[in-house]
């Protein structure tokens, strides 16, 4: 088995990448952050929160992301007058043992001077991170997320079940695996709840999907894009049954919310739909919002199954792209890491593709770059939400 390569963090976790996060704390600082990170997409990754109103969820997410195991140093880029609590964020990062610095555009001489100061600091940190020694890492130390995006009628019969097989292997090896989008599990709540390790957790799983169904009913749209229908999917329940296949067959060990770190290996459902009355709009406005939430829960990398052909990657954590549709694979092979569509051609089996995904997870954990990393994809999006903490039944001992 491939030995993973990690960088040790003070909290005990290890990262499979060692990057500088350049984090803007309001959209008004985004340009400066982007200019600081510059064209070197290996060393510095831009993340951030665009809003100017305070939000506990966004604060927690940014704290978790800036202390993500793949992050070795953090530059905060503040305009100066935004509501985001940069002091607390800087404290949290500093307490994690990472180098951190804040550039405040209004105090540091504006755009040009802030970019110059930021670039100097990032270059120093990147050099230090590049020289930092790696340590061996076990599969059981990995946290892996999965999403599907740009789904079609092939997603649920090739890519998603293959990702599920890889998840089963990872869980068996002691890794923590996270699946999500309760809005895309509508109609699956009964079969999913039957896999919970306790009856109390089963009730929580069921309740999370019922909450999602209510939430989306109020909004008037399901988690269903026009392209899903072009690809042969007709209803949200049909899309859900396909999406559910990503979870594999392992028992479900817990229910977490964005930013909750899985306490041990096993399979976890992430409840991504906000609590309380409908506020701030759609739960996750596009696929990267889901990847960001899994990273906030510690995901080192994400399996992304696509039928129509999503090309995204992510800042901070590699994304493995799994093509479900063989016709799409033929058009977008440069963007895809795995061709699960070969199952429909009869040139591969689900079992074989699942094993290939598992092997690729280990290779990427050992340093191999994914297609989206090579292409410089570093999408990132974080918007407003609000959550209540999870209840005691969500993480049975």
């Amino acid at each position, binding site marked *: 088995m491939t030995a993973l390569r990690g960088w040790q963090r003070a909290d005990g976790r290890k990262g499979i990448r060692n990057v500088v996060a350049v984090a803007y704390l309001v959209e008004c600082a985004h340009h400066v952050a982007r200019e600081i990170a510059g064209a070197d997409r290996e060393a510095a990754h831009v993340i951030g929160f665009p809003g100017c109103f305070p939000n506990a969820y966004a604060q927690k997410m940014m704290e978790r992301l800036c202390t993500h195991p793949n992050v070795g140093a953090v530059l905060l880029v503040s305009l100066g007058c935004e509501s985001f609590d940069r002091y607390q964020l800087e404290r949290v990062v500093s307490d994690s043992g990472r180098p951190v610095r804040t550039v405040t555009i209004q105090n540091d001489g504006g755009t040009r001077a802030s970019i110059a100061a930021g670039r100097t600091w990032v270059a120093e940190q990147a050099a230090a991170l590049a020289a930092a020694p790696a340590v061996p890492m076990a599969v059981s130390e990995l946290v892996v997320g999965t999403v599907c995006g740009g789904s*079609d*009628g*092939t997603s*649920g*019969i090739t890519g998603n079940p293959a990702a599920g097989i890889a998840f089963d292997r990872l869980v068996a090896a002691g890794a923590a695996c996270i699946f999500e989008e309760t809005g895309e599990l*509508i*109609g*699956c709540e009964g*079969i999913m709840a039957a896999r919970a390790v306790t009856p109390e957790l089963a009730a929580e799983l069921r309740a999370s999907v019922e909450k999602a*169904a209510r939430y*989306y*009913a109020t909004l*008037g*749209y*399901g988690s*269903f*894009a*026009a392209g899903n*229908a*072009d*690809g*042969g*999917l*007709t*209803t*949200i*329940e*049909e899309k859900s*049954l*396909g999406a559910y296949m990503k979870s594999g067959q392992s028992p479900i060990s817990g229910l977490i919310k964005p930013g909750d770190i899985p306490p041990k290996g096993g399979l976890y459902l992430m409840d991504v739909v906000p609590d309380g009355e409908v506020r701030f709009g759609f739960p996750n406005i596009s696929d990267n919002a889901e990847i960001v939430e899994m990273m906030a829960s510690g995901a080192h990398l994400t399996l992304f199954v696509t*039928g129509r052909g999503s090309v995204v990657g992510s800042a901070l954590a590699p994304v493995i792209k799994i093509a479900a*549709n*063989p*016709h799409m694979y033929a058009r977008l092979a440069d963007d895809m890491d795995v061709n699960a569509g070969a199952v*429909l051609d009869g040139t591969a089996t689900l079992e074989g593709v699942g094993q290939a995904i598992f092997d690729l997870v280990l290779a990427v954990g050992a340093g191999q770059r994914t297609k989206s990393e090579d292409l410089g994809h570093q999408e990132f999006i974080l918007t407003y939400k609000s959550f209540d903490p999870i209840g005691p039944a969500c993480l049975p001992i």
Partner: protein
Amino acid sequence: MTEARSDGRLLLLSPGDSVFVLRGQIEAGETVLVEGQAVTVAQRLGLGHKIARVEVAAGNKVVKYGAPIGSATKAIAAGDHVHLHNLKSDYTPTYALTGAT
């Protein structure tokens, strides 16, 4: 089961399903074998689309993966394309662009 009652281009995901999934594109005018019955396809159907395996009465559930995926909005005959025009969600309505050619 060696008797080919249905076309190899059609995929049955679960024994009790009321639909097949297309393993590839089928052109308008082509004939497919659905449960021993030859059916002519009226329009081009893409990979991943669904064809009814059995008759479904209006208001009844359509089953795929062994689970209901919504209700028929009109009577569906075996061999019919099953999609937005004859199936709707029991949860939230489906949004689709209608301008595509």
